[in-house]
């Protein structure tokens, strides 16, 4: 192992196409997987493509998942996730290792997502009946006496959860998605959303309580 080139050294930097052809890449990526985000980002700032690749691999799924839950549209989610990585790359030279890397990453992502949601709202405002897979089914679902036909398959349950989360105000939704699905600590959420820690707790209390009430039928013992 010791004979492998040091991936950090500039003479061993590779462009992306090289990166995915060479076998040594496997070693490079493996050895750098333990590197912390901050060190990787500092190397990206210094022009290291390999470090950027590791950050991409590390955060591609969290980013795409976050956007998929934030904006629903799968294609848009990937476009936005791509934009996050592009912005990280573009601003690499200005990167200051003050805050946690993920705080910065999620702040970019949250801003992009909220802008996209607002843009889409503007587009569809005045278009009634957009929520085609929504309201009526939810009403049917919370019927206290569901029939056998009304039992929900897994896809329906997911859709109901999604609708309940999407119905939350934007800041509550972002807080819940970050806390529940991205497993971000509430202190860090405060820094991402630029609000106080107590404000984040308040957002989470209200969001979780609203979700508990909306999804109450699903919380009963056993499945409907």
């Amino acid at each position, binding site marked *: 192992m010791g004979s492998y080139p040091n991936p950090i050294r500039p003479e061993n930097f590779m462009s992306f196409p090289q990166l995915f052809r060479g076998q040594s890449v496997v070693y490079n990526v493996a050895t750098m997987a333990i590197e912390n985000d901050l060190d990787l980002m500092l190397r990206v700032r210094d022009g290291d493509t390999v470090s*950027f690749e590791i950050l991409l691999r590390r955060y591609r799924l969290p980013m795409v998942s976050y956007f998929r839950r934030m904006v629903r549209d799968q294609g848009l989610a*990937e476009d936005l996730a791509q934009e996050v990585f*592009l912005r990280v790359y573009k601003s690499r030279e200005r990167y200051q290792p003050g805050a946690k890397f993920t705080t910065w990453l999620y702040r970019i992502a949250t801003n992009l997502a909220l802008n996209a949601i607002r843009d889409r709202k503007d587009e569809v405002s005045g278009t009634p009946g957009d929520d085609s897979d929504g309201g009526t089914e939810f009403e049917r679902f919370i019927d206290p006496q569901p029939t056998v036909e009304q039992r929900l398959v897994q896809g329906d349950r997911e859709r109901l*959860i999604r609708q309940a*989360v999407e119905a939350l105000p934007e800041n509550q939704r972002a807080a819940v998605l970050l806390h529940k699905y991205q497993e971000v600590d509430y202190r860090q959420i405060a820094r991402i959303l630029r609000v106080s820690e107590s404000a984040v707790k308040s957002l989470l*209390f209200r969001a*979780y309580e609203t979700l*508990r009430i909306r999804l109450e039928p699903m919380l009963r013992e056993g499945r409907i």
Partner: protein
Amino acid sequence: MKCLETEKLIGYAYRLLDEPAASLVRAHLGDCPRCREIVEQHGRLDAVLSEWKTEEPSPEFDARVRLAVEAQKSRSNAWAFRHWQWTRGLALASLAVLIIAGVVWFARGHLGVSDSSRVAEQKPRQAMGAQAPAQVANLHSLAVPGDGSLRPVQAVHGNKSAVGFTNEDKVTQALEDYDLAANFDLLSELPKGEPRVAN
């Protein structure tokens, strides 16, 4: 027994409380089925929310990001190249200005001598009377060259030996260019259409 605020119960359920606050809630839950039910409901909510899965990014996602980054890199390189070109142009322009300024400084020293010589020279010429109109006519013809050529330069050069240029062989092309500019200054001092020494 007084029940706890819902916020405390939710905070406990989602581990948002510090340990002293959490232990108080824990103690209360042991005695209160109502509060325990709320916490348990949130525990079930947490499990239900976990049912919302997302899929892996599409197979082409990574490639798209790499392409976008490579495109960005090319744009940055193109910008850097343009920036370099611009900077180089600016540097060359600055150098040119410096050279001209140096030449102006150098030549003005000599011209100062030539001007005073010329003034000194004019007195005897005026005294000679007949020669003066010829000199003015010469200058006037320089001011409005009939064919638009650069005769003023040549004319002044022609006077060089008379006005004290002793090393004119060493005068560079740049200096000649300066002479052109200096002559325009000199000619602009003349009243238009009316030779200064006509009366």
